[in-house]
């Protein structure tokens, strides 16, 4: 297992957001986190990154206990993050936004060129200030930025949000490619269909707890169960 | 023999013993000593060691200490040695009050010497008056010191702003012109000094067309200097003190305004100017003493100073040192004249006392005015030296004015000394 999350309780201030969430991701595995608005999906990702440190429970990444490590160390160990609100620095150009993300880890490195190969529009946008990008373009920058950090595990928070269907397919293709190269992915989605088309396993969260977990195929194949857990 | 009981040594003992048993306090011993004639006479030195006037405070302290050491070397006073304690007044009157209270009540000093800033001098003077302790204000030159804030126990040794104004103004109207501008530091000394200057200057026909008030602590004088440059006065009579004056001078020289108009700077304290280079002295100003006065004994004093204080940044004694030094010597002499350390006797020995020019190392005789307790003395007019004989020769002495000509006439009306019989008496 590249990532092991064991029974974490996470709080915002004194408000508890996660109640004993456990999940695991294997190398070369894509795991989807699904659930309604406010179920704790984003909080789970923030806990893994150490941005909102769980008060109880343990998180192991790549063989090491990271639950007490500072965020930048976790990132440097190879956890990449594509936040749901993109969080591109608006006053910097695309190129500068990407350049601050460039780093090496023990995992496969990505070059600017490679990334531009995937998101061809970016190449023409490099000199543009990020605040002048469209939503979809920003999302591309956010994903590119995560890749440039040479991650071994990428946390995608709503990657399809705001992207054209074709680009969503591209993103899914990247996820598959990461998987083929032995890297791992956690994908958080409101759009269950998109997530299920690429995930190996699924955790459904509800009100801060894991309501269901199992193989993605099981959900794909069982419409009734899908409806039960995820709505139409 | 040099007895040097500093505050440090004295209190170190105090603190150490206090922890062990019920310590009787140093003053209890003093009482015992009081009956014995070999008990040292304790002088409290209240010189500023920090704050705006620390530099000058330390300089006058050197003067006082050197005098004490000289007196002790000659066998002391009335056969008793002098010893002293020092405390930092922080150039803050409220601290000075506390220190005066402590020196008098706890250390039981016989006399207190030292002050630069008028607030500190007043604060100490008040406490001293309360207990009747003779206090020498060595270097505070606010005209109020010997005017409305005079005290029976307090003696003022420096020339005041009014003295310097009297000495300079008449001459300046004749030499430089009638269009005058006053530059006044916005506090008591500045106000009073400017007032005196204005009175004298107008008396001699000057037209004072403007007065600029400069807040204490002003850093940037350029707006003022630009204004002066635009107004083109003949004379700028500046009553700006301490650090403010230093900044102003620096900036005036930098803007090349130091030659024209003519600057009449009330007083120039040696520690404020020394080390800045001869070029930085500008304008005409007053002083009570200069180390290159062509008088017997002056050179001697310079040598003694250099031997005693080889490490200080100020290589030669100046007026501030001089005031401290002279005052201490006069205190010793007064005790001798009184034949006792009894304060009232010492005061009487001081009041009206005449000091010869020779003793004072000045050109004219001086006396302690019995009305205001102010030492009326020779005032020198000086300016920057264009032909210095060595690197300490900053001033060119232009002329001097005798004690009676420089005297501030207002002192007699402003000063109301407390009656002697209302002043507590003591003897140490």
């Amino acid at each position, binding site marked *: 297992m590249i990532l092991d999350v064991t029974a974490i309780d996470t709080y915002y201030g004194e408000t508890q957001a996660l109640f004993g969430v456990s999940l695991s991701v294997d190398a070369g595995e894509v795991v989807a986190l699904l659930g309604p608005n406010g179920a704790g999906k984003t909080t789970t990702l923030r806990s893994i990154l150490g941005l909102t440190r769980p008060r109880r429970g343990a998180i192991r990444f790549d063989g090491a206990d990271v639950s007490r490590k500072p965020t930048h160390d976790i990132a440097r160990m190879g956890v990449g993050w594509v936040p749901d609100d993109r969080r591109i620095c608006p006053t910097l150009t695309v190129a500068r936004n990407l*350049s601050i993300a460039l780093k090496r880890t023990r995992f496969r490195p990505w070059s600017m060129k490679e990334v531009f190969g995937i998101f061809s529009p970016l190449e023409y946008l490099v000199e543009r200030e990020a605040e002048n990008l469209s939503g979809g373009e920003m999302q591309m920058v956010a994903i590119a930025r995560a890749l440039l950090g040479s991650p071994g595990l990428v946390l995608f928070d709503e990657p399809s949000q705001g992207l054209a269907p074709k680009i969503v397919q591209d993103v899914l293709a990247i996820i598959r490619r990461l998987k083929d190269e032995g890297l791992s992915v956690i994908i958080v989605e409101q759009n269950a269909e998109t997530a299920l088309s690429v995930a190996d396993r699924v955790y459904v969260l509800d009100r801060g707890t894991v309501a269901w977990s199992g193989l993605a195929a099981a959900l794909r194949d069982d419409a009734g169960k899908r409806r039960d857990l995820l709505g139409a | 023999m040099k007895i040097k009981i500093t505050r440090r040594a004295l209190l170190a003992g105090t603190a150490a013993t206090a922890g062990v048993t019920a310590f009787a306090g140093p003053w209890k011993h003093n009482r015992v000593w009081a009956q014995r004639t070999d008990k040292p006479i304790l002088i409290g030195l209240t010189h500023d060691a920090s704050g*705006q006037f620390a530099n000058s405070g330390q300089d006058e302290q050197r003067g006082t200490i050197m005098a004490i050491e000289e007196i002790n070397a000659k066998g002391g006073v009335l056969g008793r040695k002098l010893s002293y304690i020092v405390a930092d007044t922080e150039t803050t009157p409220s601290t000075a009050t506390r220190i005066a209270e402590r020196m008098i009540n706890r250390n039981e000093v016989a006399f207190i010497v030292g002050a630069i800033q008028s607030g500190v001098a007043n604060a100490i003077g008040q406490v001293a008056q309360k207990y009747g302790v003779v206090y020498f204000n060595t270097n505070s030159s606010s005209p109020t010191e010997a005017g409305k804030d005079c005290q029976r126990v307090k003696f003022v040794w420096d020339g005041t702003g009014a003295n310097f104004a009297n000495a300079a103004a008449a001459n300046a109207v004749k030499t430089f012109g009638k269009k005058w501008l006053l530059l006044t530091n916005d506090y008591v000394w500045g106000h009073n000094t400017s007032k005196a200057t204005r009175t004298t200057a107008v008396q001699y026909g000057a037209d004072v067309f403007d007065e600029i008030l400069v807040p204490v602590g002003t850093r940037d004088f350029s707006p003022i200097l630009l204004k002066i440059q635009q107004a083109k006065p003949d004379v700028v009579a500046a009553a700006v003190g301490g650090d403010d004056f*230093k900044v102003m001078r620096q900036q005036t020289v*930098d803007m*090349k305004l130091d030659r024209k108009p003519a600057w009449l700077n009330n007083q120039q304290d040696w520690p404020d100017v020394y080390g800045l280079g001869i070029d930085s002295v500008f304008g005409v100003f007053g002083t009570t003493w200069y180390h290159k006065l062509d008088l017997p004994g002056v050179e001697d004093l310079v040598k003694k100073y250099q031997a005693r204080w080889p490490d200080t940044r100020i290589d030669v004694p100046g007026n501030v040192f001089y005031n401290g030094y002279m005052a201490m010597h006069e205190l010793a002499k007064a005790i001798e004249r009184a034949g006792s350390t009894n304060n009232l006797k010492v005061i009487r020995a001081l009041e009206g006392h005449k000091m010869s020019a020779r003793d004072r190392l000045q050109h004219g005789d001086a006396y302690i005015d019995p009305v205001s307790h102010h030492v009326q003395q020779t005032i020198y007019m000086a300016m920057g030296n264009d032909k210095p004989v060595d690197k300490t020769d900053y001033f060119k002495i232009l002329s001097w004015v005798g004690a009676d000509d420089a005297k501030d006439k207002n002192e007699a009306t402003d000063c109301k000394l407390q009656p002697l019989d209302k002043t507590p008496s003591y003897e140490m």
Partner: protein
Amino acid sequence: MDFLLYLLPHLLNGVALGLLFALIALGFMLIIGVMEVINLAHGSLFALGAYFALSLMTPDGGLKLGIAQLLFDLPIGWRYVIVLILAPIGVAVVGMGLEVCLRRTYGKDPLYGLLLTFGAALVLEELIRLTWGPTERFIPMPPSITGAVFIGDLIYSKYRFFASGFAILMIGLLWLFLEKTPYGALIKAGAHDSEMVRALGVNLTRLRLFVFGFGTALAAIAGIVMAPIWGVRPHVGVDAVVPAFVIIVLGGVGSFWGAVIAGLLVGMVVGLTGAYATDWSLIAMYILLILVVTFRARGLLGKKSVLEL
């Protein structure tokens, strides 16, 4: 017309002062931006810069090391250039030390940062007093930048032209640094969103340390350049930190050009009160502060920030 001619040097004066104020304020702002700390010790570090420069410029400054003698033997112009580099570095080290102390206050009420830096300001001032003495000092300047120039009938200080030019240069360099270098990108990104920057693997602790050092180095540079204008004394710091705050509030936190414009504005106000209401000139800054905070707490160009409590 005459009036305008009289006004001109005062305006020039205001501009020179304003540019230097802006320089002080920009360092102050960098620190607020990245650390959300109001650094009340900024002024003391400003003073420290001047004192370091004093020690390096002249043996009077109290530096007794043999190596320093090498420096004192250099021609004064070169010495000045070296001092402009070395002294800010020295102050930056002190600033970084302060940042290490400040770490314990991050995430708490910003008041703690304020109190701590207030204490630090007192301590630094006291240290300066002990090391260099309480009195006014002067830093010798290369003769080429001292003296006066004549503009027609009017005299103006050459040094002020130098100071303005230098301030413009520094502001320009700072802008280039922030806009064109990777460190600048990190600082801007860190100020905008520290969380994301951490998630990219940037050691925020180190970034903060660097920014604090950098901000205080700017204060030190301003202190050195300001020294011949304001003089050097231990408590000169208060006079630097108040305009910095006024400027930040006026210009808005995080607005580079806002700070520059506000700096010029404040410089102008101070220059003109200095000329036309001299006895009130020192209070002017405080009145300005009261007015600004009373009527425009959000600043002219500012965004919401830690300042709005």
